[in-house]
């Protein structure tokens, strides 16, 4: 497969069909979504409706090998090995302080910003090591978007918030920006609520709307991978449900890694789940198997609520 080189800026990110591979998967997903997406059930039995890994032979998007991570002298991640298949949702679960956020931030090198951090091992994004010295971090971050736990709208208008990413890479045409803004807001299921007030401040939106705005903002840069750090932790059940629906929709086009403290949420939105404990990856596998039949004792204890 021919990978675009990462150290050049992303080639023409305007084409919506970013991933050329396997259009068949798209249809497979669509089939499933028609019978799963309209109605969501919180009953635990149907929790796994969406969690079937539906394309077994999907290619690997992220490949993490032997990753150790240090904050100064303190090691926060120990020998993590993990692969995330393309166009799937992987949930990261584990007790507070186990290193989920740290791991997530290694995937788009946001840890670089923190003084005194150090990473060992390799993390490959479509076969390219993102810690290679020749990698351009700016280009990497436009391919691997991130949604933070606390929504962080810019103190600008809704339109300018979404247009920020495309403008960074030099898109100035008003019509093109308008198109991107509308498409991103549609994708993030926010368009209908804000279409009449795009020039209003994004700070005036509700918490749930702000979070969807942040997701839309990330989508506008046309990433391949979206990282989400507890995107729904501060939201009410209705907003949470919308975000979960959204994640389910986004999976058709994007690879998603999501940190969550909510076991039901992990079960509802993800195909794969990774359980972290004290900086170590204890177990990873298809969500349904991990939840119904964990192989490790610690995993079982955690998901049955015996600790954490």
């Amino acid at each position: 497969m021919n990978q675009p080189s990462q150290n050049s800026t992303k080639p023409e990110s305007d084409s919506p069909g970013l991933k050329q591979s396997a259009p068949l998967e798209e249809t497979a997903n669509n089939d499933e979504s028609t019978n799963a997406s309209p109605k969501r059930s919180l009953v635990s039995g149907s929790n796994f409706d969406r969690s079937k890994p539906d394309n077994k032979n999907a290619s690997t998007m992220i490949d993490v090998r032997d990753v150790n991570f240090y904050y100064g002298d303190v090691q926060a991640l120990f020998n993590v090995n993990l692969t995330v298949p393309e166009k799937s949702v992987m949930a990261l679960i584990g007790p507070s302080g186990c290193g989920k956020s740290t791991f997530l931030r290694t995937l788009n090198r946001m840890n670089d910003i923190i003084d005194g951090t150090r990473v060992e091992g390799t993390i490959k994004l479509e076969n390219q090591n993102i810690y290679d010295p020749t990698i351009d971090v700016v280009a990497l971050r436009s391919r691997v978007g991130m949604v933070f736990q606390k929504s962080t709208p810019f103190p600008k208008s809704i339109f300018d918030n979404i247009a920020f990413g495309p403008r960074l890479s030099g898109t100035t045409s008003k019509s093109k920006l308008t198109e991107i803004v509308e498409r991103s807001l549609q994708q993030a299921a926010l368009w209908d609520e804000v279409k009449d007030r795009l020039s209003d401040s994004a700070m005036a939106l509700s918490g749930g709307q702000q979070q969807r705005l942040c997701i839309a903002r990330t989508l506008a840069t046309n990433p391949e991978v979206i990282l989400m750090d507890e995107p729904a932790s501060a939201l009410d059940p209705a907003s949470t449900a919308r975000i979960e629906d959204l994640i389910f929709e986004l999976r058709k086009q994007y690879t998603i890694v999501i940190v969550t403290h909510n076991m039901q949420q992990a079960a509802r939105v993800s195909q794969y789940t990774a359980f972290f404990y004290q900086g170590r990856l204890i177990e990873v596998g298809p969500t349904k198997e991990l939840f119904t039949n964990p192989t490790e004792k610690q995993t079982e204890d955690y998901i049955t609520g015996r600790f954490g």
Partner: protein
Amino acid sequence: MSNNRGEFNSKINSRHRTSKLFELFCLSAVLLALVVLCVLLFSVISKAWGWVDVDFLTSHHSRKPEDAGIKAALWGSLWLILLTGLFSIPIGVGAALYLEEYSRKNRLTTFIQVNLSNLAGVPSIVYGILGLTVFARMFDMFPGEQQSVMTISLLITDLSIPLPFGPTLITGAMTLSLLILPVVIISSQESLRSVPPSLRHASLALGATEWQTIRSQVLPAALPGIATGVILSLSRAIGETAPLLMVGAASFITATPGGIDGMGDILTNPGSLLEVPFSKYTCMPMQIYNWVKFAKVEFQEYVTSAGIVVLLGVLLLMNATAVYIRMRFQNKIQW
């Protein structure tokens, strides 16, 4: 339990009394400051009454108190502030940006940081001596009676730069810039620090470069704070006398810098703008200081007061600008 409860309540009256006393103390401090300020303002304004008029603003110094004006000093002060701003804003804000946004914390930056705070406390006369050595005399690198002149040919006109600068506006402005730089840097840093880090992270995570993040997120959010700090520092500079005394602001001069005393002059002879930085000059605090030393009682009392009122007027205008910028930009960035 009940014992404790009683003790707790028995003290409650004395606690309220202490609280009340403290409130009274704070109130009297405010009132005292206000009274002193009012008395001062009243006495100055009442003496200046009838002396501050258009003539006072548009005529030069004269031996006769009735004819004396503040024109040269007013223009001198305005140019001084403009040039000081031109020097200190880019350098000060640039340094603050580097220290806050780019540099990683290490021994060198800690050392710089500590010394910035120290420099902010250095008496202004010391900066005067520094300015004298470095700008006015340039370490006596150009010996001889005659001042050497460097001529740079620009397209339409020649720019003549005296070396060393001597007692010219540019010397004064550079000295004042040095004086206020530490405060400009520290207050700019403070405003940059108050920008939430999450804003930077969100921007970087979208694939913005450091500079794009600073330009479109950090600076707009920090601008009101930075502008306020800069303008307050410039207000301090406009009232400075000691360092300018050192670097040789003229006592009495009957010419405005570059011979400009209105927009018309700039339009008819734009070349005169180039002469401004290298003109001899005086400024309002200097002028007031010199009037006080005059024998005639009218000078000591009325002309001086009139000068002070003009100086206060300019200060008030600058502070009003600071408030305006603050409100305007705060509305614009839609928190």
